């Protein structure tokens, strides 16, 4: 069986700026794959291209055999995604958010309620199903998003910094769900994170991206050997340097940041 995610020579340019520069990699079915790199390295852009949100400037992306740019709808059915920022409707209840997703993905009507119950129980949110999402904590929202992403039995799950801003307990819980899903349903997991310890503990294979290019890939062992280091964090720093990156926020993200800081100040 061939790779379930195949990226060949993919580039993405925004005007003069090349965010992703001739990237190629494969992920095999059932694998847990970590995609790591500093801020602004091209991780999110790659995920957006893989999930049909952005069109590549050149190159070919395939998910479960489907050409991502040409067969968008077929591609969209095979993956689930948890975005870097929340993507729930805050004004709806947990159950309503799940229901909406079920309709968008054309889940058989008779199975919808049972499926929602099963998933909300999996992430321990069944008791809270009638609560408006606005009142949820960051961890609860993230759990709900994972449950939602699983609704349509995706073959591939994309997790873009799924544990960002969560406490150690919740992070631990999330990784346990994810590992369990990977084992039970043979689901391929593609994730990014800044916590290198997590990647070392969970990922079967890792790719490092920097300045839009893949700088190294392999298992943790291979990466340590290649760089002559003792752990993944050292290998990472050796490959990507210690310099701090400035990530330019796009305007939507910039606004979100501003809005959040205003809301935070208001709450004080």
């Amino acid at each position, binding site marked *: 069986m061939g790779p379930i995610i195949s990226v060949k020579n993919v580039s993405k340019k925004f005007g003069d700026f090349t965010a992703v520069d001739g990237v190629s990699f494969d992920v095999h079915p059932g694998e847990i794959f970590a995609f790591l790199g500093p801020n602004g390295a091209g991780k999110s852009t790659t995920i*957006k291209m893989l*999930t*049909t*949100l*952005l*069109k590549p400037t050149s190159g070919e992306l395939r998910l479960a055999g489907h050409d991502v740019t040409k067969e*968008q*709808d*077929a591609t*969209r*059915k095979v*993956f689930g*995604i948890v*975005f870097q*920022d*929340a*993507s*729930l*409707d*805050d*004004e*709806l209840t947990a159950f*309503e958010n799940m*229901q*909406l*997703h079920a*309709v*968008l*993905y*054309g889940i058989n*009507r008779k199975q919808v309620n049972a499926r929602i119950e099963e998933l909300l129980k999996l992430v321990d949110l069944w008791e809270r199903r009638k609560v*408006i999402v606005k009142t949820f904590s960051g961890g609860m929202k993230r759990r709900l998003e994972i449950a*939602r992403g699983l609704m349509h039995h995706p073959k591939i799950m994309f997790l873009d910094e799924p544990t960002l801003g969560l406490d150690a307990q919740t992070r631990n819980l999330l990784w346990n769900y994810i590992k369990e899903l990977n084992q039970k349903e043979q689901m391929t997991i593609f994730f990014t994170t800044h916590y290198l310890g997590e990647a070392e503990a969970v990922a079967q294979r890792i790719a490092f991206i920097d300045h839009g290019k893949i700088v190294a890939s392999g298992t943790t062992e291979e990466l340590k050997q290649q760089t002559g280091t003792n752990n993944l964090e050292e290998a990472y720093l050796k490959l990507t340097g210690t310099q701090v990156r400035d990530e330019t926020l796009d*305007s*939507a993200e910039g*606004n*979100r940041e501003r*809005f959040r800081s205003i809301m935070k100040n208001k709450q004080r």
Partner: protein
Amino acid sequence: MSVIYILWLRQIKRFSRSGIRIVMGFVQPLVYMLALGYGLNSVFQLSGRGSYIQFIVPGIIVQTIMFSSMFWGANIIWDKQFGFLKETLVAPVSRMKIMLGSALGGATISLIQGIILFIVAIILGFRPYNWTYVPLAIVFMGMLSMAIISFSAGIGAVVNDMQAFVAVNNFLLIPLFFMSSALFPLDGVPTVMKIIASVNPISYAVDAIRMTLIHQSHFGLWNDFFVLLGTLIALLAFGSYRFKQIQA
């Protein structure tokens, strides 16, 4: 349940849960109706044109629908900023359906607000000349809602921040409203204003609703209908085209 229905329902649920928005939608039009309607009524009557309140209610209904519909485009910016838009954009459904479902939800809300204002006007003394034409007036209100909603969806798709959106809104809506036949009859104004009002589609919406509610028309109901229909089609095309172009 279809995709369009669930997205429509989402808008209705969101609206019904935000009490403040429901109330805020009426304050401005109510002030217009009271201040202008009662304030200028005697002057209007002196010039032999009958009741100004009767005359102005269709205009105020149009204003309510315009502003509530236009404000709806802010939802798209909101959805972009809070990420929900991405959830719909990665789903295996066409953008057209996403846009249509959400827009129909928004149009329904505007229409409800227009109808509530109509009821308030009746409580304040407004009388339609023939009740059997009221449903027809509601059809025109619906067309106007959908047209403005499509336009605001198009603007919301292009603009990324709220301030710019509000600025674009005010820049476009206020002149469109005041330079229409909403507040004054067109037969008494200088030629330049008459020309401006005659190329302004809002005038035709006002005129259609005025004809069906109080039996007064400047352009004729068929003209009103065709201009409104043309505007609706053009703006629907604009809105869905822009919405398709969104890249997250």
